[in-house]
């Protein structure tokens, strides 16, 4: 299902999102600061393509920049450098008016179905708002569209006058999905859409998203820290660490044969619901915490926790290169000739 789904819909070229925290001035030095300007490199030179109808899973731990990347794709945050192309047009450098037009095609589903819905608006108004904003309908026909889309996501149309607090978490996430779908988008960034939900409800939402994708030929960027969910919904998976993509391949490849030491550790850390496997499993337990994204480690950002790091890793910034066909990794210790880090 992965090969050549269609045309490239989204294309990132060296995308950068930096947040300047200031510092580094005279005052900073006088008060015992480092004298360095503090910059959070939330997204630090990310390049990849997403094809039409594809789900690209973006996985990483908190603070790795995955949500910022998702927001940058819709330009919900300012882009510091690089390009973000949607059907060949650069979103990073669009004017406000052009951007508004494009946003209709680019929608987002958020993690917290409690915080992302206005508690004072009825479901009908929440879902109807984008329809009116983009002028897709007016008057009575808005309501008809709202009811249609509610049905599509499995909400009874009788609920149109209700408020968010009258719904469970799973139903609220359906409302969030309905709001995103209401304007008939082509691309949806789903930022941790199932993390706040119970296990039995997670399956419902993942299935719903997959059905909708088939029906409407949607393209997803599915952001999650949950590797099991990512594996299930994604065609390809990108692993992110401190602002950079360290590995990119099909879900199966990443899972069965991860190449980058970070992906390996990440995958080995996922607890599996099988006591027999759990008893036999060799875990790679990483030492230490994820370093701060403010002035991250030099060279390979992962070298401070990497069991295979050598002196060179502190200096050389690894590039994402194709190690195996359609399987990319950013690690100077592996290559096409020697893809296994264990042999390095």
């Amino acid at each position, binding site marked *: 299902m992965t090969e050549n789904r269609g045309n490239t819909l989204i294309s990132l070229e060296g995308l950068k999102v930096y947040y300047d925290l200031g510092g580094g001035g005279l005052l900073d030095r006088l008060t015992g600061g480092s004298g360095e300007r503090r910059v959070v490199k939330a997204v630090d030179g990310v390049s990849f393509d997403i094809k039409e109808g594809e789900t690209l899973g973006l996985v990483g731990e908190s603070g790795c920049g995955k949500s910022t990347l998702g927001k940058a794709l819709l330009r919900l945050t300012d882009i510091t450098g690089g390009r973000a192309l949607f059907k060949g047009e650069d979103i990073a450098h669009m004017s406000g008016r052009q951007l508004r037009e494009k946003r209709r095609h680019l929608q987002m589903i958020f993690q917290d179905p409690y915080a992302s819905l206005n508690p004072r608006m009825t479901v009908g108004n929440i879902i109807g708002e984008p329809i009116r904003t983009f002028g897709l309908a007016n008057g009575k026909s808005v309501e008809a569209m709202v009811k249609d889309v509610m049905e599509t996501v499995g909400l009874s149309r009788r609920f149109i006058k209700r408020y968010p607090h009258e719904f469970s978490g799973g139903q609220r996430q359906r409302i969030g999905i309905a709001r995103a779908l209401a304007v008939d988008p082509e691309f949806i960034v789903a930022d941790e859409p199932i993390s706040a939900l119970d296990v*039995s409800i997670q399956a419902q939402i993942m299935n719903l998203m997959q059905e909708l994708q088939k029906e409407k030929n949607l393209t997803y960027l599915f952001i999650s820290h949950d590797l099991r969910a990512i594996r299930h919904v994604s065609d390809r998976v990108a692993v992110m660490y401190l602002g950079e993509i360290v590995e990119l391949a099909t879900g199966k490849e990443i899972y069965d044969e991860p190449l980058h030491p970070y992906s390996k550790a990440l995958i080995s*850390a996922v607890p599996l619901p099988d006591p027999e496997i759990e008893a036999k499993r060799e875990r790679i*337990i990483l030492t230490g915490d994820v370093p701060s994204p403010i002035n991250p480690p030099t060279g390979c950002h992962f070298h401070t926790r990497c069991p295979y790091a050598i002196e060179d890793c502190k200096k050389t910034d690894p590039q994402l290169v194709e190690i195996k066909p359609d399987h990319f990794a950013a690690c100077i210790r592996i290559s096409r000739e020697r893809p296994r880090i264990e042999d390095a």
Partner: protein
Amino acid sequence: MSENNGNLLTVNDLRTYFQTEDGTVKAVDGVSFQLTKGETIGIVGESGSGKSVANLSIMRLIPEPPGKIVNGDIIFDGQDVRKLSIEEVRKIRGKRIAMIFQDPMTSLNPFLKISTQLMEVTQLHLGHTKKQAYDHAVEMLRKVEIPDPEKRVDNYPHEFSGGMRQRVMIAMALSCQPELLIADEPTTALDVTIQAQILELIKELKDELGTSVILITHDLGVVAGMTDKIIVMYAGKIFESAPTGELFERPANPYTKGLLRSVPDPAHEHGAPLYQIPGLPPDVAHLPPGCPFAERCERSKEICEREFPPFVQINENHHSLCHFAKEVYAESAGGGE
């Protein structure tokens, strides 16, 4: 592991109800289990299943009103915790039974140094002098593998990362070498690689100190590698209890089966829809007369809606709350999926 005399904790027909505007919520309704010394039990359930309330009841931490333990025995090392005065309970809490919670930031006092918070425990329970308590605090931080414990002990909670804070909580919980550790979603707020570290740490410390553990979680993966036996809760009831291996291999309850099947299996090809349990968890204030899972259950029959199911004994250590428990168990034998 099956002998009964070594029981550290016996919970018998525990019922904890809450009075709400909406009526009586039977948050925990007839929960029984035993825990032997050194054993780890997993309590699995979705939100509202009663798994946390059950454990707060054991610690006598249910706010009353609106909550109340209305029935049951909680026998800890021969003493009925329900019959103790609150003073006596306080002597057990933190000393012989310790707890760690999901969110280490809200369980640590942000205004106090870690040292102060760690010292408080041993000064109170073990009668340590200041000096002893301070040294012990450093020692505990070393035990939970916090780098530079001599320096870090005088930091404030906000100076630690989430994983490190959870380590501090574990250090505090284990300060008095408790016989029982209750861990309520200890890794849910943490990243995957940090979760692996913390679970490994709990395992090591448990083996070293011989502590019994109650591990409460919604994650079947977490309990699979950590526990000796598992209780599955739904709507305040125990739906199934079994040794860990058997529960995963041969579940005898449709709810357990559904839960197991709705976790994505990384070994499977992607694309096929995931098994999903239809519907929503029930409103515990208004439970139907029959089985609380009936309306979501794929094999529900007429009797399920009418009559509350029996707690069927499958074998010595395996029970399931279902009218068709034996049939479900038989079906699971053929490798279910």
